[in-house]
């Protein structure tokens, strides 16, 4: 199993959710996040005083998938998240040792 994590622009959430559903993903977790990449946030001005705001709002989407689906799913997320502008975010995958469905106790791929 793999855990796919995507940190992306908040307004792409609906597109990504739709794309994941179309792909057949059963469930996902979404959290609000903040951070920056190479573009380093933005500048705000208050009565002429400039403040650099490093951390910009993002969302983090996490999905558990079977190994075989991981690469294809990453492509789906990237395609749905992309606006072409700076700050589009990142997607990555890490191996997962095990997963358990809490209600039934099913383990491994059955728990997905």
């Amino acid at each position: 199993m793999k855990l796919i994590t995507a940190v992306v622009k908040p307004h792409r959430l609906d597109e990504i959710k739709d794309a994941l559903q179309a792909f057949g993903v059963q469930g996902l977790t979404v959290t609000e996040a903040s951070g920056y990449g190479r573009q380093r946030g933005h500048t705000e001005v208050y009565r002429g005083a400039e403040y650099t705001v490093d951390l910009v709002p993002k969302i983090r989407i996490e999905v558990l998938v079977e190994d075989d689906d991981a690469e294809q799913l990453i492509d789906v997320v990237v395609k749905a998240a992309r606006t072409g502008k700076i700050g589009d975010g990142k997607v990555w995958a890490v191996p997962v040792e095990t997963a358990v469905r809490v209600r039934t106790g099913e383990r491994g791929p059955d728990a997905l």
Partner: protein
Amino acid sequence: MPPGITLAADTPTLSAANTGFMLICSALVMIMTPGLAFFYGGMVRVKSTLNMLMMSFISLGIVTILWVLYGFSAAFGTDHGSLIGWSSDYVGLSGIGLTQLWDGYTIPIYVFAVFQLMFAIITPALISGALADRVKFSAWALFITLWATLVYFPVAHWVWGTGGWAFDLGVIDFAGGTAVHINAGAAALGVILVIGKRVGFKKDPMRPHSLPLVMLGAGLLWFGWFGFNAGSWLGNDDGVGALMFVNTQVATAAAMLAWLIYEKIRHGACTTLGAASGAVAGLVAITPSGGSCSPLGAIAIGAIAGVLCAMAVGLKYRFGYDDSLDVVGVHLVGGVIGSLLIGFFATGGGQSDAQGLFYGGGLTQLWKQLAGVGAVLAYSLVASAILAFLIDKTIGMRVSEDDEVSGIDQVEHAETAYDFSGAGGGTASRSAGPVQEAAAQTKKVDA
């Protein structure tokens, strides 16, 4: 306030219209203080919102009582040496008849007293913006008690009281550019030079926590200012109050636009805070001048004030004094600009026949304005600094550094402005009462 005004009637009689108008104007001026509280409250960080609101609000309590006890008498009683007033009838507002008229006008003394009370309340409140985040509430309460007594009441007498030296000299201050804004701005500068900067000034970000609150406050100020300005003629018999109303709107609009244009050129964006600040700068500048200039003059005065105040707010970073919310940059600078521009833009057709430089009056009025501005600025600056110094040496002006960093709301008021704990949050101990009651109610519903 109109110097040397005489109304058409030889012996004025009580005017129901003017009296009603002035009571409404007094209420309008009252709303400016809560408006100011929101204007300032939105500009501070989350952790000191309540303190900022309270520093304005407490003035409504303290100054009202002082005014009744002796403030009105000190400001508007019989003149003593052109410096201070005193009339025993005014002490405790004890010897004033219900229909006894304010000398030379068609409104009762009570109405004049309550209108002027609202000015006395907002002026110390204006100072608080410079002291955000760091002053003990008890020290602030003591400061405004002493400041109103030793600075505001005498200065109001100089500028507006019959026999006051500035009034007799012919210094024009229609609604408080000198007595209110320069007075408060200079006091703010005096106090912050004594108490010093906020912890983290120029290092930590100190962004406004709620610009919508700032806009709400600025809107209330703008609305209430019509009472402040148009009411300062104390009646509606000859149209000067109406001219003032028009000029208030016009100058404020011009100043807001000027500030935004300056900002767009200088910083690349028209900001909300800039719009609110520009409006207030325009209101400040037209306050002394609006009774004596034309609407076109008001546009010029507003635009000049908008740009110069926008430039002035940056001075604190250059000179290193921490005027937290730019009381000096907006109120002192705006007040000085408005007062001095009377010397250029007075048409001779409004509140007085004095003409400015642009209307053939020469430099006479400008010198008078300079004298008024300089004297009030110097007196307020020095007296306020001395008061702050004395309070600092006795009960202490500032909260501890730890308390300032953790937030003055919690330390001084045992409250915080917002609950961010969310559902199920708030682990603080609760009294058993409400919880049990809630449980009992739930049971009833279940049954």
